[in-house]
Structures are given as structure tokens and as C-alpha cells.
């Protein structure tokens, strides 16, 4: 009862007429339905990167510490002492909209498998989340439901698996109401000489399936993730996979133990496109072929067709190639951990993916036809779509009372308020390595075996990118690197997750092209090569797209395992120094640039203009200055100025301190609203012991970077501002803290 391949069936598989013609021409015959399914998932945007590949090639990908770059399951960097770190970021946006809890769990599960399939033990996860506004009268209820589900899902998976979720970000913008973004980053460590690759080698070697049984869940998930949503998206719920973190924990331990036997030659996880992707990619990488018989695949249901088995995205499965004759060593380990392990096929020498079912061939395709020869498009692009006007109200004139009210409002805004409700649901300490966790600029995790620490930061800024995708993307890279600098680290490698709308629209494609250009330019400048990542397109519902949202993940290394200074003031009597000066970039189109700020979004309630001005050379000098100051142990606290500007950064530095406030005083001609709330980059707020001032100033001068003393900390719970020697306002840190600390819960409980 084979369905015939009608134009309708081709269309349902997300293939264009041209793509189908290409299949007919190459095969010289009509594909079987199983073959059509296999080709459609491998050629989907999600697996083939067909719209982005030509542009991604422009990114810098090499560096002296890069051991493995893009194209593998994860990128790998050298962290010293014979140790290496594997890391990557991946999206699970579409599934998380349809079924938030499972969508998020399987997102985390998938990225963890990408790490341990290479032989690394995962030691940290971070999440970058974007949702619709929680208080929107129409979509707020749905967004609150999505937040509950996604946060619960991320926590559930990481907590049970036993990997700490050490940081992340959560942003709320209208464009994400119908398209939340769930980007998960994971990092693992291993010996640099014990890296495993997803490759099939040695004719006649056994192909072994391990882990969970194959069910009907997630069939064609990769194709779903390559389409826009309409009103019927709920009907796609069966396409979402279901995660089991306990099974994944067993799979982790079993895989790492089996790798130690030396009998494994290649291994790849079954993620998107499941058995299809793992078989043809493992064969494709070496030019070998793989032959499997589906009747040998452990199955959860009795009536699965070859099509179902090849396209299932059941979680917690791996495919490996072992040395013939040593299978039992592997089977023994998996048996110990109570997991299925079955020989399902063999490695051949003909470059084909040959799929049999009870001995009968149901699909026979060239591996390279599915992987390297997948379509690549140079999609047309115009100028980036701009959802907001270039000109707006400009920098507002405010007085002390207005500034105080603005600060009170900003600290309670969803993007800025405490994310404690989120991160307390995550075990951020398991494995006892987290020396700097959630709530700081960067996360720091020590590596006990290597005597070093790894520093991580995730950052994206859809609003900036909507106003200028290239500058926005560069600002995201800059902020990530700045976060690393706050603990004294420089970038070693980066990963990116490119979340965009429909690339078939030229003005959306233009956003993607510009953002990649910005990432390339900034990553080159910061010497932060891209080691891999993920592209998520078609983030549109009913024709409305998200803000273009490239999310960067940056990793650096510290040569010690000490606890770094965080963002928090350590007590009264310390001097406050702003490295970078009050307003780098000066008044370059300030009225326009202010339109991208949190002040504009939350208080003026309009978004317009351009992102803050970034001078890459200056930013690099500021970061070098702060790195040196931190490395020399001169700073008591370090916090970069970002969302909400300087006033918010000062308040945040008081929050975790016990009854510590600040007296701020400076002279300036810059409009008050801009100096307090503009989000100019290249600024880092330090608290230092007064005796260290001359050293700090010298370090800054040597790099031509301003270091402005803007006040001091006090042993009282209040912040006071004086500008040009006139008192501006005073505010209690207790009341600011209360509204900052409880805002998210209040919004969720509406």
C-alpha cells in the first residue's frame, strides 16, 4: 500500500517542484516514499542550511586554540593542559511554541547529546529565551503559559541529567508572542586526544544502535522547523518529541564508558532527522556507505513503517560504528546501564545509504546526494526590513523626579528585573564547579581536572538588530566579549544561533545577510572564531516575523579556579570608576540611537532609530583595560553597562549587597536621560579600594581609555545622584530591590 508520489505529496514534504525534478534526474527514477521522506528532511532548511550556507562561509572559523570548527556536532577549543572543551548553541523554537515543556526539554537534550557524542562530559548549560510581553491583553495569557512550560522544561532536563544551568537571558518583545525563541547552549570537557567524530569507517564494521527505542514521535520535526506557522500549528503537536532526561543521563554514562573501551570508531547522536541524518552523515563524512536493516531497530510501537522509523525523532538515541570483533565490549557497557544496543547494519564501501526492511531494500541513496549535494540557494535580498521608524521623539528632557521615576520603572521592567524565578528552577550548582552563576555578566565554571576555569556568556539583542541588523549583531558580539572581560577573560571561540523569519522574503533575507556580516566583522576584530552553531529560519506566525535575533555564545578560559569578583558592591567606602567614560560615541545621532534603549521601549513606549554607536577599536581597548585591572586583582566588583544604562547598572550592583548604596556625582553636558539611561556600549562599572585608583587610572591611560570616578559606595541602603554639583534625586535601594526582585513573579501571576 505504497502512497504514490503525487505533486501534493511532494509539496507536503516541503520540496519545491525544482527540487523534486532534481531528485528525479539524479535517481533516474521515481523515489520510494521512504526515499522521499529521507531526502525531504535532509534537504530541509533545518538540516541543509540551504538559505544560509553561502553566507555562513564568510564567518571566521580558525584560530590557534580551535581544535574542531564548524561541520561537526560541536566546535572544540583547546583549554590547556591537554584538555579541551566542546560547545554549541542550538534552537528549539518551533517545538517550544507548540508544546513549551517538551519543546524546551528536547532542546536541552539535543544540545547535550551533541556535546557528549564527541566524547565530552557536559559541565554547563545556558539558555537564551525570548517570549511575548507577559502583560499583553491578547497574547499575555499564552506567553505566560509558554514561559512556565519552557522554564520548567529547561530545568527538568538539566536538573535530572545533572548538568548545571549556569546563566542565560530572558527577553520579552511583541514579535515573539507567536514565535518564542528557545536557544540552548551546552559545553563539555574532555581530554584533547580523546575526541570522537560522527564517521563510519572500515568496511564490514558493525553499525550499532544504542539508547531509547524508536517511536512515532517527532516524525518530520526537522521539516516542521523549516516552515512558517499558520493557525493550525496546534495540529503539529505530534511532531514534537518527548524527552526523558533520566534515559539521557544513562546514555551519557554508557557512551563515555563505552568510548573508554577503544572499540568505538565513530559515533553520532540521532537528533533532527533521526536515523536518517546519523546514517547518511556518518557515511558522508568518510565517503563510506552504510547499510542497515530497520527490522533490527528497537521499536516502541508495533506498526511502524520504514518511513516512520527513518524519520522518527525519538530522543536519547545514538548510532555508532565499532571495530568488528569487539562488539561485545560495547554491548557489555550498555547492558550495565540497562540500555538497548543492537547491531542494525554494517559499513560498506559504496558511498550509499542502503535501508532494508526484513532484507528488502526500501531506500537506496547516495550519501553525498543527501548531504554535500543538497540544494544551496543564494536567495535574493534587498535592504533589511525595518519594523520601526528612523526618527522618533529623541532624548527626552527630564528632571530629578523624572529620572527617579524612570529608574523605578526600569528595574521592574520584564527585560531588566531579576530572573530569580527562572534560575531558581535550574540547578545551577550541581558538579560543584559554578564559581560565578546566574545574575552576573558572565558565568564561570571551574574545570577541576585541568586547574582552569571556563567563562561563558550568551547575548542577543533583537531590538537593536531590528533597527540595524549588522550593528545589532556586532553589539551582541561586543557585549559577549565584554562580559568575558569583566572576569578577566578574553574570547577563545564563539558559537551562534541565528533566529530569523522567512528567508524567501528578500527583506528578511537581507536581515540575515547583514547580521552574518556583522558577526563576521566583530568576531574577526575580537579574535573570536565561530566554531559552529545553528540557523533557525521561518520564525513567523501568520506572516508576522520575529525581530532578527542572532544569539551569540562566547567562551573564554581563565588560568585559575578562583572565584571571580561579581557585579555586587562589597561594602561602603569603595570608589566607583566608570571605564570607557560617561558616553562613548558622544552625541553621534544620539536622538536616533536613544530610540533603541530600554528607556524608549519601557517609558517613552516607542521604539525608533538606531542601535547605540559601537567603535570596535575603542571597545577592544576598554575590554583590554578591564581585563588587566581584573587580572591584577584591583577590582572589588565589575559590571558592564547594558540594558537600562548606567543608572540601572549602579542599582544592580547594590541589589545583592547587604545594605550597601552609592553616592554618585559627576559633571557633564550630556542630556540627563542619555547619561543615565542610554545604552552606549564600551562601559564597565568598577568598585575599587581608593588606594588602587592610581593603578586603575594608569592601566586605562596606557590604552587611551577614560576612567571616570563617578562616586563611591556607602554603608546605607540608598543611591543618591548629583550632577554638575546639584542634587538630582535619592532613592532607597530597599524599595528598588523589592520591585526588581518581585516584578517577574507579579507579571506571571497576573
Amino acid at each position, binding site marked *: 500500500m505504497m502512497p504514490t508520489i503525487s505533486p501534493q505529496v511532494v509539496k507536503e514534504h516541503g520540496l519545491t517542484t525544482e527540487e523534486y525534478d532534481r531528485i528525479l534526474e539524479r535517481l533516474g527514477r521515481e523515489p520510494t516514499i521512504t526515499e522521499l521522506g529521507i531526502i525531504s528532511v535532509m534537504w530541509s532548511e533545518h538540516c541543509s542550511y540551504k538559505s544560509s550556507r553561502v553566507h555562513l562561509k564568510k564567518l571566521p572559523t580558525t584560530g590557534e586554540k580551535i581544535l574542531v570548527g564548524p561541520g561537526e556536532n560541536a566546535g572544540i577549543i583547546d583549554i590547556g593542559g591537554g584538555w579541551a572543551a566542546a560547545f554549541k548553541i542550538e534552537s528549539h523554537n518551533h517545538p517550544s511554541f507548540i508544546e513549551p515543556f517538551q519543546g524546551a526539554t528536547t532542546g536541552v537534550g539535543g544540545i547535550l547529546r551533541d556535546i557528549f557524542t564527541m566524547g565530552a562530559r557536559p559541565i554547563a548549560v545556558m539558555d537564551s529565551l525570548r517570549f511575548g510581553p507577559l502583560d499583553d491583553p491578547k497574547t499575555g495569557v499564552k506567553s505566560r503559559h509558554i514561559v512556565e512550560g519552557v522554564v*520548567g522544561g529547561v*530545568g*527538568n532536563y538539566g*536538573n*535530572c*541529567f*545533572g548538568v548545571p544551568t549556569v546563566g542565560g537571558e530572558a527577553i520579552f518583545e511583541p514579535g515573539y508572542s507567536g514565535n518564542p525563541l528557545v536557544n540552548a547552549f551546552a559545553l563539555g570537557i574532555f581530554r584533547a586526544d580523546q575526541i570522537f567524530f560522527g564517521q563510519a569507517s572500515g568496511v564490514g564494521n558493525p553499525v550499532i544502535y544504542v539508547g531509547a527505542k524508536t517511536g512515532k514521535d517527532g516524525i518530520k520535526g526537522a521539516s516542521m522547523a523549516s516552515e512558517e506557522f499558520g493557525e493550525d500549528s496546534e495540529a503539529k503537536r505530534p511532531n514534537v518529541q518527548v524527552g*526523558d*532526561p*533520566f*534515559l539521557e*543521563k*544513562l546514555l551519557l554514562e554508557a557512551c563515555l564508558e563505552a568510548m573508554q573501551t577503544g572499540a568505538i570508531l565513530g559515533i553520532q547522536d540521532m537528533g533532527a532527522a533521526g536515523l536518517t541524518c546519523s546514517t547518511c552523515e556518518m557515511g558522508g563524512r568518510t565517503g563510506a556507505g552504510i547499510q542497515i536493516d530497520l527490522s533490527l531497530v528497537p521499536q516502541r510501537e508495533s506498526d511502524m513503517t520504514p518511513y516512520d522509523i527513518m524519520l522518527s525523532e525519538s530522543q536519547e538515541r545514538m548510532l555508532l560504528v565499532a571495530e568488528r570483533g569487539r562488539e561485545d565490549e560495547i554491548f557489555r557497557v550498555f547492558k550495565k*546501564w*540497562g540500555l538497548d544496543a543492537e547491531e542494525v547494519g554494517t559499513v560498506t564501501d559504496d558511498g550509499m545509504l542502503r535501508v532494508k526492511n526484513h532484507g528488502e531494500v526500501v531506500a537506496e541513496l547516495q550519501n553525498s546526494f543527501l548531504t554535500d549535494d543538497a540544494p544551496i540557494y543564494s536567495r535574493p535580498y534587498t535592504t533589511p526590513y525595518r519594523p520601526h521608524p528612523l526618527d522618533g521623539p529623541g532624548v527626552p528632557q527630564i528632571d530629578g523626579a523624572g529620572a527617579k521615576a524612570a529608574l523605578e520603572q526600569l528595574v521592574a521592567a520584564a527585560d531588566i528585573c531579576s530572573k530569580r524565578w527562572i*534560575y*531558581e*528552577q*535550574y*540547578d*545551577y*550548582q*550541581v*558538579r*560543584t564547579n*559554578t*564559581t560565578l552563576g546566574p545574575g552576573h555578566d558572565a558565568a564561570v565554571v*571551574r574545570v*577541576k581536572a585541568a586547574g582552569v576555569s571556563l567563562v561563558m556568556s550568551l547575548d542577543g539583542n533583537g531590538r537593536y538588530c531590528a533597527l540595524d541588523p549588522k550593528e545589532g549583531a556586532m553589539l551582541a558580539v561586543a557585549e559577549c566579549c565584554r562580559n568575558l572581560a569583566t572576569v578577566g577573560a578574553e574570547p577563545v571561540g564563539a558559537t551562534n544561533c541565528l533566529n530569523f523569519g522567512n528567508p524567501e522574503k528578500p527583506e528578511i533575507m537581507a536581515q540575515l545577510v547583514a547580521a552574518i556580516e556583522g558577526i563576521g566583522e566583530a568576531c574577526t576584530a575580537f579574535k573570536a572564531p565561530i566554531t559552529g552553531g545553528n540557523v533557525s529560519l521561518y520564525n513567523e506566525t501568520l506572516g508576522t516575523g520575529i525581530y532578527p535575533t542572532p544569539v551569540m555564545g562566547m567562551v573564554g578560559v581563565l588560568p585559575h*579556579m*578562583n*572565584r571571580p569578583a561579581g557585579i555586587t558592591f562589597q561594602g561602603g567606602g569603595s570608589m566607583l570608576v566608570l571605564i570607557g567614560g560617561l558616553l562613548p560615541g558622544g552625541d553621534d545621532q544620539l536622538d536616533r540611537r536613544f530610540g533603541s534603549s530600554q528607556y524608549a521601549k519601557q517609558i517613552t513606549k516607542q521604539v525608533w532609530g538606531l542601535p547605540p554607536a559601537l567603535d570596535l577599536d575603542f571597545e577592544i581597548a576598554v575590554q583590554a583595560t578591564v581585563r588587566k585591572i581584573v587580572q591584577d586583582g584591583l577590582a572589588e566588583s565589575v559590571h558592564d553597562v547594558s540594558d537600562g544604562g548606567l543608572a540601572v547598572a549602579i542599582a544592580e550592583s547594590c541589589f545583592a549587597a547587604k545594605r550597601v548604596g552609592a553616592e554618585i556625582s559627576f559633571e557633564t553636558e550630556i542630556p540627563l536621560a542619555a547619561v543615565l539611561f542610554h545604552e552606549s556600549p564600551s562601559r564597565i562599572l568598577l568598585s575599587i579600594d581608593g588606594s588602587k585608583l592610581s593603578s586603575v587610572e594608569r592601566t586605562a591611560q596606557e590604552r587611551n581609555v577614560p576612567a571616570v570616578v563617578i562616586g563611591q559606595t556607602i554603608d546605607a541602603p540608598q543611591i543618591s545622584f548629583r550632577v554638575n554639583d546639584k542634587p538630582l534625586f535619592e532613592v532607597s535601594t530597599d524599595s528598588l530591590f523589592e520591585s526588581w526582585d518581585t516584578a517577574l513573579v507579579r507579571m506571571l501571576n497576573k
Partner: protein
Amino acid sequence: MKFGVVIFPGSNCDHDALYAVERNLGEQAVGIWHQSEDLEGCDVIVLPGGFSYGDHLRAGAISRFSPVMGAVRRFADSGGLVMGICNGFQVLVESHLLPGALIHNRGLKFSCKTVLLRTETLNSPFTSLCDPSQPLEVPIAHGEGCYFADDATLDLLEREDRIAFRYVDGNGEATEAANPNGSARNIAGVLSEGRNVMGLMPHPERAADPAMGSQDGLLIFRSVVSSFVAAR
């Protein structure tokens, strides 16, 4: 002194306990696989945190049937020291080595944060070096950590001085606000009748190293060593 850390499928704080004992405490530690009935001559058994058997059915409900738990029970019955941390505490109550139950947190959410613990008794091998006037700063990380027992049991525990730790605020008061999970009478840890088995939800092994912020948890491990040495 030799510590044995039991490894169930799904244990994930086993490495942390081993590290804290070996590196921060400076004592010997070995991992014991759940299918083993041989406790390898250990002087104290630690049931570590994690999600043994994925918390399927109820946290700890399946682990109690592991072969190792038969050996642990015999060890405890003969006076051996057993400490259950987080999931280990859940396994101990499921095994009836400790009274009560651990149910879903008030609010039904997993909660990871640092709490303050007041030592309620010095009369135990796990608390002898602690100072009741100096609350311990120790992290929690659990979804099912709300200690529950009927009033008669709670009264009995209090009468017999078997409450090891309570959640308290900065002033050392066991207030409702200081109770992170809704535990009955703010109970964070309890002792067996013989005082040689203790379960607690907070993670002392996470507060054993200067790089992790607090080292207060080490006092619990040091108490164990000191009691053991004194008893020899």
C-alpha cells in the same frame, strides 16, 4: 576514615560528594555501584543527590529496591553511619530507615538557592562540631523536598531530639519565610532512632570548597570524622 558513595542510575551528585570528601575533607572515598552488596569496608555510607531512576514513581521509590540498599540497611542496623543527601534522604525515607516523607515543594517548583540551617542538636555524629548559634549557609536544589510527617511523628522526633537541622532566617528564627519548600516545622534534616542515620535535603558537599562560596557544609563532614575518631 573511608567514605562510600553509592551510585544509583541517575545519581548526579556522586562526583561532588567524592570530591568534597577526598579534596576538601582529605579522607578516603570510593564509589559503590548500586548492584553491589559489598560496602567495601567503608566506615560511613553516603547516599548522594540526583535523580535515581529518574524519580520515576516517586523520588527514591525504586532505588530502595537496589541490591546495595539491603547492605546499607544491615550496615545501619549494626550501627554504621549513613548520610542521605537530597535524593539520598528521599531514598532513606522510602526505605523506612528514616521516618516521614518528602513531597513536592510548596509551589510545586524545583528550587535551587542557598539557605540558612540552624543545627538543632549536637548530639549526633553528623552535627557534633556545629554551632547552633551560627546558622550554616548551604545550598538546596530539589523539587520534592517538603518534609512531611504526622504530628505524632513530628512530636516524637522533637521529644527524642532527632531533628538535625531547621531552615532559618538571618536572625536564626525558623520562620515561614525562611522555609523554602513548606517542610513541616521547617525541618531540613532528621536522625534515625539510633542517631547513626541522617537525611537532609540541603547539599553540604556543595558548601565544602572556598571556590563555591561557603564552606559551612564541611562542618557536617568534619563532625562525622571527629565522631568516628572519638569512637575508636
